[in-house]
C-alpha cells in the first residue's frame, strides 16, 4: 500500500520547549490515521507543519512522494485546530473563499456540503452568529468541499453535541469506505478506536508507537477469570508466573500474557486439575484507553 504522507524525523521547538522530537511515520493510502496524544503532546504542531502553517526546525515530509506545496494542499481538505472563517461573512460566502483559493468544488458542491453538515438552512447567516458546533460543522463542510481524496482533521468532533459526534464519526467511516484517506488528530480515545484503522501515539513530542489500531490494541493478551473461591484461584494462578491484577469488587482476576500466548483451554484445564472450577473465562482485548495510558505513563 503506497503512502499518502511520509514524515521523516520532524522536529520543532518553541524557544526552549521541544514540541516535536524527530517524529517519523507513514500514512497508508485509504487509511483513517489517528494521531493520538494527551494535551501538549504535539498533535496540532505536527498537523500544522504538514499544512505549512508552521516551519519544522528539521526533518521533512512528503505528500504523495513529493515535498509539500500549495498545489498539493489545494487537493487536501483540512480542518486545523479551530474553525478559521471571516466572522462578518455568511457560511456560504466563507465557503466561496475556500472554493476560490483551493479550486475545489463548484457552487452546487457548496450547497451539497452545507446540506451534508446540516447547515444549508443557515447558509446565509453570518459566521459570527453560529454556535460552536455550527462553526465546527462549517469547517468540516469546507474540508469536504470538492470531495478531496485526503482529509486532515484536527479534533473534528470538537464542540459537537452527541448526535453531531455520531454523525461525524459515521461520515468518517463512510469516507473511509469510499476510499478516502483521513488523517485525524484526537485525544478522544474512544473516537479513534471507533473510526481509525491506523494510529500514532505521541507523548511530549515523541512518537511512542505507530501501526494498525488492532496491532496497538493487542500488544498483550489479557485473560479474565473468576471462580467461587477467588482466593484459592489466586493461589494457584501464581504458579503461572504471569502478571495478575485482582479486582475484588468484580470478583475477577486479569492475567496478562505476551501477545498471542494466551491459551484459554490450557488455563481452564490447569485450574480444573488444581481443583478449581472456573465460572468465568474470557480473552479480553485491551482497550485503546488502557493501552494509551500504559504507553504514555499516565
Amino acid at each position, binding site marked *: 500500500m503506497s503512502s499518502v504522507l511520509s514524515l521523516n524525523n520532524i522536529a520543532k521547538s518553541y524557544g526552549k520547549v521541544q514540541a516535536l522530537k524527530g517524529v517519523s511515520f507513514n500514512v497508508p493510502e485509504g487509511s483513517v490515521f489517528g494521531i493520538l496524544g494527551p494535551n501538549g503532546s504535539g498533535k496540532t504542531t505536527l498537523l500544522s507543519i504538514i499544512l505549512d502553517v508552521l516551519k519544522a526546525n528539521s526533518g521533512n515530509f512528503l505528500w504523495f512522494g513529493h515535498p509539500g506545496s500549495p498545489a498539493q494542499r489545494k487537493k487536501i481538505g483540512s480542518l486545523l485546530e479551530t474553525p478559521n472563517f471571516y466572522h462578518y461573512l455568511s457560511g456560504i*460566502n466563507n465557503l466561496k473563499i475556500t472554493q476560490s483559493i483551493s479550486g475545489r468544488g463548484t457552487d452546487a458542491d457548496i450547497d451539497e456540503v452545507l446540506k451534508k453538515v446540516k447547515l444549508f438552512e443557515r447558509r446565509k447567516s453570518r459566521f459570527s452568529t453560529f454556535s460552536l458546533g455550527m462553526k465546527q460543522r462549517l469547517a468540516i463542510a469546507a474540508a469536504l468541499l470538492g470531495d478531496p481524496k485526503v482529509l486532515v482533521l484536527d479534533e473534528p468532533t470538537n464542540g459537537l453535541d452527541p448526535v453531531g459526534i455520531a454523525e461525524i464519526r459515521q461520515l468518517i467511516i463512510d469516507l473511509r469506505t469510499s476510499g478516502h484517506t483521513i488523517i485525524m488528530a484526537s485525544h478522544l480515545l474512544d473516537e479513534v478506536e471507533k473510526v481509525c484503522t491506523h494510529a500514532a501515539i505521541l507523548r511530549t513530542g515523541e512518537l511512542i508507537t505507530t501501526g494498525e489500531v488492532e496491532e496497538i490494541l493487542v500488544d498483550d493478551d489479557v485473560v479474565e477469570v473468576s471462580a467461587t473461591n477467588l482466593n484459592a484461584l489466586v493461589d494457584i494462578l501464581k504458579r503461572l508466573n504471569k502478571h495478575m491484577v485482582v479486582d475484588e469488587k468484580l470478583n475477577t482476576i486479569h492475567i496478562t500474557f505476551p501477545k498471542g500466548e494466551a491459551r484459554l483451554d490450557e488455563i481452564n484445564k490447569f485450574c480444573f486439575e488444581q481443583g478449581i472450577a472456573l465460572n468465568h473465562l474470557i480473552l479480553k482485548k485491551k482497550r485503546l484507553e488502557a493501552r494509551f495510558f500504559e504507553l504514555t505513563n499516565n
Partner: protein
Amino acid sequence: MTNIVKTEWLKIRNYPAFWWVFGITALTYPGINTLFLYAYHDITKQKSTAGQVLKALMGNPFALPEGWRTMAFFSSFFVYIPAIVVIMLITNEYTYKTNRQNIIDGWSRRDFMTAKLIDVLLLSAIVILLYTAVVLVIGLTNTKNGSPHIWRLSYYIGLFFLQTFSQLSIAFTVGMLLRKAFIALAIFTFYSIIVEPIAVNFLKYKYNSEIGRFFPMEISDRLLTKPVFLGKIDEMAYQRSIDAVKYHVVYTIVLVLLTWLFCFWLNNRRDL
C-alpha cells in the same frame, strides 16, 4: 493573479466595516479640499487692505495648474483614513486566523502577501482617482476659461500616488507586525502625527541636521511641496524643497521596495 484579486474581492465585498471606512475616505478628500477652498474664498473676498494683500500674495492656489500641487498637499494630511482600511484588512486576517486558513486551503505565503500588496495598490489607486476627480472639479471651476497649461503640474498625480502607496505600505507593515487593529492604528497615527514630526524638527533646529528627511514618513512627505503661496515665506528654502523632490522620488521607491521585501520575508519566515 486573477484568482487572488477575485478572492480578495470576496473577502471585502460583504464587509460592512470596510465600506463604512471606504465611504468616509471617499468623503474626506473632496471634503478637506472644499473646506480649504471656502476658507480661501472667505479670506480673499474681504474688502479690507489685509484681505486684498493676501489675495495678491496668494493668487488662486486652487486654479489649475497650481491646484494639482495645492490639493495634493492638503489631501496628503488624510492618509490616516485609508490607513484604517489597510490596517483592518491585514489585522482581520490575524484576528480571525484566516491568514493560516488561506495557506491551508492552498495559497502559498507569497500568494497571501501578493493579495495584500494588491489591496494596498488598489486602495492607493482609489485615493488617487478621488484626488484627480477633486482637482479637476475644484480646479476647473476656479480656472479661467481657456487657461493654458492646466495639465502642467499633473505629474502630482504620480507623486501623490507614490506618497500614498509608501505611507499605506508603512501602515500595512505596522499592522502586520502588531497584528491588533486598534494598537496598530494608534501606533501608526501617534508615530506619524507626533513622534516623527517632533523628531524631524528637533534634529533640524536643535542640531541643524537634515537626517530627519530620511525618516519613514518624511521621505515621502517631501514628495509633495507646499502650495506656492506658503513657499513665499522663505523662497530659497522652498526652491530647495522643489529641487529635492527628484531625489525623494528615488528614496521613496527604495523605501517602498524595502518595506515590501521585509513584509514578504517576515511572512515567509514566521509561523502562522
